[in-house]
């Protein structure tokens, strides 16, 4: 049972991640590969606020959201000028810088040894210290984040993002401030993924930089690509598939020595097949270019 609850918590965390990434990729047409860096920033800022300043979970998450939102300028400002492959290169650079900071700023992050003893969340004196309570807390948090994202994407702001994705110059010629829309989209997406990062840090109680590498960014992208972009369902389906698939593969009789590689091969094959046969993803409406 605990195993299933553990999976559910991971699913909640990745639901927030994929919804935030879908906001950028599926609606804004901005292929971001630095998402793991912002996930890490959220986790580290919340963890440090709780460990060093003794803050509660909610103020710590608030700080993580603000810091990630401000640091999102590192990708949103270049997005004013760079498009397509060049923008991917910029976000790749931001991912590398983010990871290097977490790894090498030893005084603050404890470098490769990471941070331990991160407390569980508590509200009005009630501590979510059992796995059942954490599951409930994570599910409610994910539900609220999804609700906010859905409201945003269904609003005129979401429509503006779609217009920007379809034809930015046409949108600008209609008087739309697409630069501001990009800035807002990155700020919101990075803030949301910082919430997911904080949730992750408080659940596992220990974080180190290896959880926020480029591989993690690629896993996040895979979830969105497999599930599909441009609607609300796609990322939810993607997160569900890529969280449950490795767990299902555990039940397949693969020798331990090659199990990890076989899983990676299956991921790769899945992505190639998806790109060929269903480029809009399992449940998506927008075909990524």
């Amino acid at each position: 049972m605990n195993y299933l609850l553990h999976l559910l918590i991971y699913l909640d965390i990745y639901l927030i991640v994929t919804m935030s990434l879908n906001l950028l990729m599926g609606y804004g047409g901005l292929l971001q590969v630095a998402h793991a860096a912002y996930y890490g920033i959220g986790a580290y800022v919340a963890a440090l606020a709780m460990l060093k300043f003794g803050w509660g979970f909610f103020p710590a998450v608030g700080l993580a959201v603000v810091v990630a939102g401000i640091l999102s300028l590192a990708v949103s400002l270049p997005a004013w000028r760079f498009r397509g492959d060049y923008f991917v290169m910029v976000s790749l650079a931001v991912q590398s810088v983010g990871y290097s900071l977490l790894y090498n700023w030893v005084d603050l992050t404890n470098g490769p040894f990471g941070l331990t003893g991160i407390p569980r969340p508590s509200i009005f004196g009630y501590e979510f210290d059992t796995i059942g309570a954490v599951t409930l807390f994570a599910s409610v948090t994910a539900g609220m984040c999804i609700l906010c994202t859905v409201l945003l994407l269904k609003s005129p702001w979401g429509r503006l993002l779609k217009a920007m994705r379809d034809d930015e110059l046409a949108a600008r010629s209609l008087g739309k401030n697409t630069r501001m829309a990009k800035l807002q989209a990155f700020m919101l997406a990075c803030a949301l993924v910082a919430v997911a990062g904080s949730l992750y840090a408080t659940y596992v109680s220990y974080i180190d930089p290896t959880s926020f590498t480029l591989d993690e960014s690629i896993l996040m992208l895979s979830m969105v690509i497999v599930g599909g972009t441009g609607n609300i369902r796609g990322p939810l389906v993607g997160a569900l598939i890529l969280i449950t698939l490795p767990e299902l593969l555990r039940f397949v009789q693969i020798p331990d020595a090659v199990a990890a590689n076989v899983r990676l091969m299956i991921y790769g094959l899945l992505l190639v097949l998806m790109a060929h046969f269903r480029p809009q993803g399992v449940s998506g409406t927008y075909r990524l270019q």
Partner: protein
Amino acid sequence: MTTRFAEEELMSDTEKASQDDVVLSARGLSKAFGGQIVLNDISFTLKRGEVVLLRGENGSGKTTLLNILTGNLKPDAGELHFSVNSAREVFRWPRRWWQNLNPFDHFTPERIAWEGVGRVWQDIRLFPTMTVLDNVVLSSPKQAGENPVMALLRLGRINKEELYNEEKAGRWLNSLGLGERLHSSCDKISLGQMKRVAIARAVQAGAKILFLDEPLSGLDGVGVAEVMRYLDALVRTDGLTIVLVEHVFNIPRVLDLATTVWTLADGGLTVENTEAAQRSPRSDEGLRLHSWLNEVAGPDGKVVSRDLRGGVRLTTAIPKGTEDAPVALEVTDLVVRRGYRTVLDRFSICLRKGQLTLLESPNGWGKSTLLDAIAGVLPAQSGEIVFNGDQIHALAANRRIEKGMSYLRSREAVFGSLSIAEHQKLSRGTSVTFGENSHNGHIKANLLSGGQRQKLLIEMLPKAGMYLLDEPFIGLDSHSVSQYAEYLQQQIGGNKTIFMAMPETTNSPLRDMGGI
């Protein structure tokens, strides 16, 4: 940068009234690309309710001027005064370096749109993943819901605003005859409907000056009439100021509506009223297509027309002695699908050597699909294509070209990053030369105007026994149209076969005028 006119107070009442009518004025506008001067010290004024036809030869700078006036391109020198709204805005060039540091003072498309300037693009640029209604609602100015904080916290206000904008957009679209297509996806409506949506979108965005780049191109007779009727209504009832760039074929139609004609030539701009412009030699521009077909057939030949299903007309110019010429191309029971839609269903046609056949069809009938299928660019589901006695329907496009076909597609299929000279090297020999491209071999194709691109594509066509031409005259100026028509006539004289597709003009007054 933003200046309120101090001299306004010194004007007389008459001057002031006249000045109040001016919505846009330009002084000394200049623009050069890589040393080539496109616009040289241009000045003009545009008054409220004026309808201007902007014309000029290919490469004369029409699109450049449009790009400058809509904030998509900065001139090298000059001034622009916008006074659509109550406050007057002035932009001057060249700019000081420190002016570029002010993030709120940039000359950008969105800033110019806020001044009440709208643009309808030649390639339309609707948002294809949205519905017709959403395309128009989106363009409503100053939407509170476009602020994410408001979108989350003021749901009631946002919903009310949306309802208001939808109602307004619905009214525009209804008046354009699109009331039943409100919820259709914009990539699933016809070209004429797309053009009308684009105009409605610009008007909903608050445009008081509307720049339209070839709004009639590619439209059939019905489409032309619909768009012109709507533009007329916008001018008469809403007092919009309109500047139209239009292809030579459609100029006579636009002159009915225009009050002023701007002509760009050699970097300069001439402003005339419509009567004067009609008296000038340019008003005769355009190819009289059906007279030309008679010329192609020659005095002893004949021109035969027959109507097919779906409003399609096939007209063949048969010069004397070619009545029983060998068959060059025979298409039998051709079925072509695009996705799930069957575009051509058992289509048959027979073309003989030394003859020119013109296919005129309404937009969306599938003329480009037919030519694509004959040339092998698009696979046919069934049917037979026999070219010079050989079955070719199983051959790839390059093999069909090797067998003696030459295909001009209707879209601007140039390679943007390659220069003119590189394009010419890619081609397998030039069939016709317009002249200007030979001097500008170093220029990249993406810097060429629409007409120059069309000329380059025509120049790249290899010499062949059969020419498949999809809207070959589109974008060409009158001189180039005549030059190319003469070349094609020579080809027919040389026993070549030409199959040409054009939009039908049955219901257009242009047909009555003998032009297309």
